[in-house]
């Protein structure tokens, strides 16, 4: 018999106490960290700040700043590039709003540029700087300039936007190529704010680095030299990352890393769902476990974010949480989902509901990881490890009040990495967040932006582009001239091609149009799905879940990017399975690797094909399989460059035949598992060596003959298992070519990485935990493979 709401025990502390007291929860906790409350460290408002802002702050009841805010504001007011890397909700926006507003108050022509990775964030911060300017009586305003801005508003932004709020893509393709029409704004550009700096890593970050170099070059032409203020979530190398993005010496950047914001008492738990079938080692569904913990929290009136890994997970968990709480008189509207693909007005409504407390629980994808303002929440439950330490802490950071206690729970899935974390929680707690890496010197990216920069402003024949040496710049310009896009005339290189280079250079690899989901009964768009996601979620017969309602896709108009759905009352959801294959289109180079013959390693063009092979119907709550269906959709194809490494079949068979002391044969599948381990280690050292993000590289294990069939377990000859490493962007960005050049070095480093790793059987930092086939661990087999092909130990 559930208690009435007023009888129930409430609050985070109560729930945690209850969990710890009850065996069914406490027995499953593989880690429990306690961070006691911290009081605020405050500092005086910097003396240099304009009086009108000081007054505005005091009217808001602010008479001092947190120490990190004061430090950041002073640094920015002194025109030093500044990076603020403090946890979420520590009041980072004020760190850049204040110096920007100060500049606008002092100079009626001054301008600032804000760059955000998503439109939703732009909007929040546009409103917040506007409010500050209003409060301070500064007669200037902030204007959004992005792809959605209409013609008149664009002119207004150019003419009088004190703060121009935009995004890197728009700066790259919409502002810089037309900078002459922005002369007024660019000649008085005092600050550039780059928020969510940690999201710009890998290839995207390398592109942004060049966009910012081009911005600085054009700003200098118009007579300004803006100061950069960057804000980032916790990463391992904030100062270095900012330095490389802006293209300056790290010493010239002020790092503000110690938060002075107070924080309440906080607990972080790692929950591994209980084993339900000891023989098969099957654990309880992590989704259901996360739902149960979330329900406990919401029932006790604790505002909670439940993070899921995918959109489907989020919708399924939304349904489960609502159902679990329906017995407790908890109104259904208290529980909402939040993910990419919701219409903007739906998102707005949910954000507002969270801030105002009308929504108690939100089930979200990583769409809520970034700094969208949802007010202060009490608890975070994360269903599954999000893939990196940095992302985990960022999710945890979405909860936590400045005064009251909070809790964050990571629920481990049955994924090997999650299970490793459950065994070795120190990996999560004892380690700093990953570094963000970029490589602006990637020659393909460099040349593309050199073209854009030439278009924007002819290079002088003695000019050096940003921090690239003069002779390198000039050689590259000569190369472009030989290809007919530049012409040297007098002391300048002039752009003479009839094209607009920024248009053919995309900063992000996702370029295709979104699909719109249309409810046929209301003839109304109810959601959006990105192009790639549409293949796995909008095939005909798919169940499209939206805010706990189920719709069935009746017709998919692929060419026009529309899915027509009808509301149904389905007791199941659909789960698509996909297969990735790589086929070689053109082999341009071949090489040897240590003891292996000349032909094992190659570089070339490949086609990566992702195909939805079918779907299954999964019953809500029980997760029973109700049947399968076919999917007929065009494959998602991408042509890109790749390098591949083949393990000759005879070696594989020799290693598979190895016996342990008691006569067990290792078997081919264990060797293939070991190869996967090698691939994982190779990916780790490659992304480090090439300074890219692991997502920029794809890898798959295939067969080199045609790449479509996976090696068979039977060990049929002729299947040489091959690791394909490919650039995860159509056309390629030169990563695999570099990896090919460095292949032996990378293999040596892989061996070193695995050998020096302190784990026993393989962990996410080396070979990734294996599937436990055969008697040897993945780590052992991987090392054996590397030794077998003659990879030496690093001296």
């Amino acid at each position, binding site marked *: 018999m559930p208690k009435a709401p007023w009888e129930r025990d409430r609050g985070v502390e109560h729930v945690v106490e209850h969990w710890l007291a009850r065996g069914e929860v406490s027995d499953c906790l593989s880690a429990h960290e306690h961070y006691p409350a911290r009081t605020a460290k405050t500092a005086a408002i910097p003396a240099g700040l304009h009086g009108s802002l000081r007054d505005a702050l005091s009217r808001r009841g602010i008479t001092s700043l947190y120490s990190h805010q004061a430090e950041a504001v002073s640094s920015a007011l002194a025109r030093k590039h500044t990076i603020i890397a403090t946890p979420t909700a520590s009041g980072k926006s004020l760190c850049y709003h204040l110096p920007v507003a100060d500049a606008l108050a002092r100079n009626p022509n001054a301008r600032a540029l804000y760059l955000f990775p998503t439109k939703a964030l732009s909007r929040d911060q546009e409103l917040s700087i506007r409010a500050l300017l209003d409060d301070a009586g500064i007669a200037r305003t902030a204007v959004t300039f992005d792809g959605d801005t209409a013609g008149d508003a664009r002119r207004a932004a150019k003419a009088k936007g004190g703060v121009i709020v935009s995004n890197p893509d728009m700066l790259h393709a919409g502002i810089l190529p037309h900078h002459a029409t922005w002369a007024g704004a660019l000649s008085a550009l005092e600050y550039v704010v780059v928020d969510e700096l940690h999201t710009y890593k890998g290839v995207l970050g390398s592109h942004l680095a060049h966009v910012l170099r081009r911005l600085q070059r054009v700003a200098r032409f118009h007579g300004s030299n803006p100061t950069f203020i960057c804000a980032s979530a916790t990463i391992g190398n904030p100062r270095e990352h900012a330095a490389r993005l802006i293209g300056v010496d790290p010493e010239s950047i002020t790092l503000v890393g110690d938060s002075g914001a107070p924080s309440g008492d906080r607990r972080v738990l790692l929950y591994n769902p209980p084993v339900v079938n000891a023989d098969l080692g099957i654990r309880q569904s992590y989704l259901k476990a996360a739902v149960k913990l979330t329900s406990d929290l919401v029932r006790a009136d604790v505002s909670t974010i439940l993070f899921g890994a995918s959109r489907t997970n989020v919708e399924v968990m939304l349904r489960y949480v609502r159902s679990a709480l329906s017995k407790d008189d908890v109104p259904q509207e208290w529980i909402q989902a939040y993910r990419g693909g919701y219409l903007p007005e739906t998102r707005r409504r949910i954000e507002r509901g969270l801030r105002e407390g009308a929504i108690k629980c939100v089930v979200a994808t990583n769409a809520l990881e970034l700094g969208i303002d949802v007010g202060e929440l009490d608890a975070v439950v994360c269903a599954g490890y999000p893939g990196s330490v940095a992302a985990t802490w960022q999710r945890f950071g979405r909860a936590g009040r400045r005064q009251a206690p909070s809790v964050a729970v990571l629920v481990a899935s049955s994924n090997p990495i999650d299970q490793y974390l459950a065994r070795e929680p120190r990996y999560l707690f004892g380690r700093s967040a990953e570094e963000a890496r970029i490589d602006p010197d990637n020659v393909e990216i460099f040349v593309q932006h050199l073209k854009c920069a030439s278009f924007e402003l002819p290079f002088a024949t003695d000019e050096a582009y940003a921090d*690239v040496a003069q002779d*390198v710049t000039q050689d590259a310009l000569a190369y472009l001239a030989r290809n007919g896009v530049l012409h040297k*005339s007098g002391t300048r290189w002039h752009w003479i091609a009839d094209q607009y280079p920024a248009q053919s250079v995309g900063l992000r690899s996702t370029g295709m149009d979104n699909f719109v989901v249309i409810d046929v009964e209301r003839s109304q768009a109810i959601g959006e799905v990105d192009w790639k996601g549409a293949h796995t979620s909008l095939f005909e017969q798919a169940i499209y879940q939206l805010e706990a309602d189920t719709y069935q896709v009746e017709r998919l108009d692929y060419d026009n990017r529309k899915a027509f759905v009808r509301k149904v009352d389905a007791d199941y959801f659909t789960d698509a399975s996909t297969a990735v294959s790589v086929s070689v289109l053109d082999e341009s180079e071949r090489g040897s690797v240590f003891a292996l013959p000349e032909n094992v390693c190659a570089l070339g063009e490949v086609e990566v094909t992702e195909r939805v092979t079918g779907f299954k119907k999964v019953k809500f709550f029980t997760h029973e399989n109700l049947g399968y269906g076919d999917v007929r959709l065009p494959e998602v194809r991408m042509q890109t460059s790749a390098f591949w490494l083949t393990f000759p079949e005879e070696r594989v068979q020799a290693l598979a035949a190895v016996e342990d002391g008691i006569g067990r044969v290792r078997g081919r599948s264990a060797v293939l598992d070991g190869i996967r381990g090698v691939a994982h280690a190779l990916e780790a050292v490659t992304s480090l060596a090439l300074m890219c993000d692991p997502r920029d590289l794809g890898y798959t294990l295939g067969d080199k003959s045609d790449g479509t069939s996976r090696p068979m377990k039977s060990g049929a000859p002729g299947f040489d298992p091959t690791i394909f490493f490919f650039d995860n962007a159509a056309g390629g960005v030169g990563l695999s070519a570099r990896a090919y050049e460095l292949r032996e070095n990378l293999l040596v480093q892989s061996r070193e990485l695995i050998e020096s790793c302190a784990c026993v059987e393989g962990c996410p930092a080396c070979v990734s935990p294996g599937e436990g086939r055969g008697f040897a661990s993945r780590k052992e087999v991987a090392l054996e493979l590397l030794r077998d092909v003659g990879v030496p130990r690093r001296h």
Partner: protein
Amino acid sequence: MSNLRKRLQRLANATEPTEAESSAEPGPATRRVIDREPELPIALEAKDEAQEARRRRIDELRERVRALAEKPSKRSERATREAKEAALSELPFIRHERVDGAVDVRTRVYDVTARHGHVPLKAALDAVGASVATLAIDRGLSDFDPTRALFLDTETTGLSGGTGMMAFLVGAGRFENGQFVVEQWFLREPSEEPALLLALRERIESATSIVSFNGKAFDLPLLRARYVMNRLGAPPSPPHFDLVHVARRIYGDRMRECRLVHLERDVLGFVREGDVHGSEIPARYSEFLRRGNAAGLVPVIEHNLWDVIAMAALVGELVARASGGDALGRFEASDMAGLAKTALRAGDHSLAIAMAGDALAHGRSVGERAVVSRAGAVAARAHRKRGEHALSREALLKVIESAPDDAHAHLELSKIYEHKYRDSFRALEHARRAIGAEKDESLAKRLARLESRLRTSTLKLPGID
């Protein structure tokens, strides 16, 4: 050709290099073993190592860029230079030394009695401010003086716009002492741009208006950007008569594409021979710069000259129509309707009524119902603006005489009967045939209102007349 090379070529060139081009490429591939294997930073990068790492990366980038950027031989550079010098002598320009630098210019002078197609250039001299202001729907042009107008057209290195595009050929025509003088400035080298811009600025400064074809959206913004890029003060912006909008309003109905060459053919009666299509022009200039190929530029220079002359002739043709003349009867009914509509929007109601009347008469005689509808609607609105409700009603009745299902005309009639004649019965009759002319909800309200007024009316229903 190595993989990297191939991809970089794709990066450098939007278009695939031609066979000849790629084989002319010097041979050595970039396939190359890095002899010094760089130390890769596997551990956390220490601060003092950052500089060193940066230097190393630049060295690597240098190697990679060098591998693809072999220096062109001195001989081929000289050959190109010589070819260009020879080419310049083939082009019809005279080198004009100015204080700010040299500029290549060609000046062509035409007697104003010369005709372009069937329009004498002097027709443009009849342009009076009032007509031009009406045609352009722009009061700013009320003082238009054809003898002080600059007819401006540019040929550019690209068509997509943006700061990297230059005008390499600028044509500017003006009336002077009974002649039409066209100057064309040509950029033999992009570095000479400032001299060209300054020469052009002098002409703009002494003009009181600019005439162009799509110059508001294209030529003028591009030129303004060029002044900014060269750090030259911006030229003045006198009132601008952009013919593309006028032409679309008047001729848009009968011409699918309102490009200048089409107007020239269909309106002025002039067909260019050997003309070059606009989309080919940028490539021809880049051919000239890269290889000194001048032959391709000759038609471009003529194209630009034709454009300037055609604009002058088109102004003549338009103002003749706006002042009511159509001696040769080339003006079609749809053109008249277009002009009537333009005049209405410009607030010139008497011209609107006159042109609409012509369009109505002409349209009815050739049976163009769509034209009749449009002209009738314009006449009705122009009369209504002048408070001439009876005439307005008459115009609308003429429309439904030849186009009985014109819903808009019925709606307008319904309004006139309801509000000016207080005749709910006729108003209702017309409203019932106005389906689609306004939003369904508005029409429903209108019908309901009229019906209820009829029911409560103490008058008997009027008889049918």
